């Protein structure tokens, strides 16, 4: 799976969690870009992402993510691990 494909699949996850069809995510998107992206919705994003890609994150991998690009990297890494 390419980073492009992962971002494409992350988009509906973001749209569902924030209930906003207009959201567009890219590698640089972070919490400053989306209203309502706080520590609580962050939990929801991670859980929905795990479900979307049928993976389970490790604590050390997601404890400090800065933006969607880093999330994409972790998704790739976790998929490969599994």
């Amino acid at each position: 799976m390419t980073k492009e494909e992962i971002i494409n699949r992350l988009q509906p996850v973001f749209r569902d969690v924030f209930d906003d069809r207009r959201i567009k995510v890219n590698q640089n998107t972070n919490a400053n870009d989306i209203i309502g992206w706080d520590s609580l919705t962050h939990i929801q994003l991670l859980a929905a992402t795990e479900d979307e890609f049928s993976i389970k994150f490790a604590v050390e991998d997601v404890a400090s993510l800065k933006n969607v690009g880093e999330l994409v990297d972790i998704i790739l890494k976790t998929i490969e691990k599994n």
Partner: protein
Amino acid sequence: MKELDYPFDAKQLLRKRKAIKKSLTENNETKLPLRMAVLGGSTTNDVVDMLELFLLNNSIAPVFYQSEYGRFWEDAVFENRELDLFQPEIIYVHTTNRNIDQWPSAGVDKEIADKLAMHQMEKYSIMLDALTEKYHCPIIQNNFEPPAYRLIGNRSVMVPDGRVHFVNQMNILLNDYASSHSNIYINDIAYLAADLGLYHWYDSFAWYMYKYAMSLEAIPFLGFSVSNIVKSIYGKNKKVMALDLDNTLWGGVIGDDGVEGIVVGNETSKGQIYIEFQQYIKELQNRGVLLGVISKNDESNAMEGLNHPAMVLHPDDFVSIHANWEPKSINLEQMAKEINLVPDSFVFVDDNPAEREIVRASILNCGVPEIGEAENYIRILDHCGYFEQSSFSDDDLARNKMYKENAQRNSLRSKYANYEDYLRGLEMKAEISSFESIYVDRIAQLTNKSNQYNLTTRRFSRNEIEQMMLDPTYITLYGKLLDRFGDNGVVSVAIGEKKDNNLEIILWLMSCRVLKRDMEYAMMDSLVECCKGQGIENIIGMYIPTAKNAMVKDFYQLQGFLQIGEQTDGSTKWELKVSDYISKNRVITINQ
């Protein structure tokens, strides 16, 4: 909302909670406002979010107070202006075995372990006493789930220093406290965790990352459980179960199989399923649930089935029995009027998804469980929580806030403007063609079993059917019906014999399972097309009355035929000029 009915997709609820909440709050429904305090021994945010969805689904609009992280005890026991100002009407204490301060250490004896348990219980009774004294309201308290690890394995359940044993002790003490305090309701997370499986209940990731005492996927189930207690306290339990008969209370279709052919009784696996299901329903009745029957059958057939010797439920177990061919939604409305209850206090139990759809669409907030396969009826119905018991009698605290049902409310707010729209919504497709070898068995079966929707009740052997299939002097048609919910299989059979320029229909039958779907009109469309293709000018039909087929007396009239003869025995003869035929089928797509 169907999404919030058990069995729900927990992950979808978590992911789409914003949209679901929006849908529930914008549905113009009057809801009971409720101030609910959630005191947590661990993170409560997602718990509150899920609880909110299930409460909204029960027509309750909650406003929440949440304690600061982990401060359930302090918030309860010490002065708390914020909580005082909030004036909670109901409190939920979200604790788990993560909140057990002190587990018995290795080797302690029974005396010390018991003291430890009582000391721990005292912490909870101090808290619950304080809450009751300050707020005089119902309090829902989690019990303790089995521990995540046992250290010593199986013996942990038995020995005083075993963690499993300790949790069981704590739960007994909690039960004792709740039994003597009428405002305390136990939320049985021990059962919940077992139901999900400890493997799915526990999630270290969720604990270490977010301090959730259970996995995120467990949280919707937890919210559902608490919401069931709340809605029960506020009088929103269902009160009646309206049950289908065929393939719901017994296996098979009595109209087709006859009373000897239905499957109910302990001699077969399948029969046992229905016996146990009836026993479960009887137990619900013993606890105050009213029972009714809504069945698409002639009344005589329904009563014959209900009087089958193996049945656990008998006619006098039902406050009302509706056995007819009218839409079940209409029947439910009428039954509700008869027994003086609102239709949304009903649970509609039917194996047929098409029937469930029309009731779900027509009657707001009627319970319509997706009961699945017969062997799962009990499990699903039980998990739906329609009849959650919250007291032995009316709860005085709740009566003040009891939601007054509006008996005049127009409950037939149909999703469909009319019945035809409903039929269209079924997305029916028919496969109608001349007999084929693969269907001969089923055609023979129908030919020899169908009694009700059968114009001539002529029986043909398999051989005769195969011969007619190959003989060009016969036009044969089988009809298979598919809809949005699945494939109903071959449901109709017609055979006509060519005589000069006429076709005489010697057999026309249909399974009662697909009555009132306009399948007979689709079949006639195909027959007429066949006739046109073979230069047939007139179709002649006979109706030969029997004790069981009165329902098709007017079949040919409805199809646009003209009556040309009648005999003393009641049989009638009908004729249609093929060129005059007008199709009446508007809802079934044929052979596409």
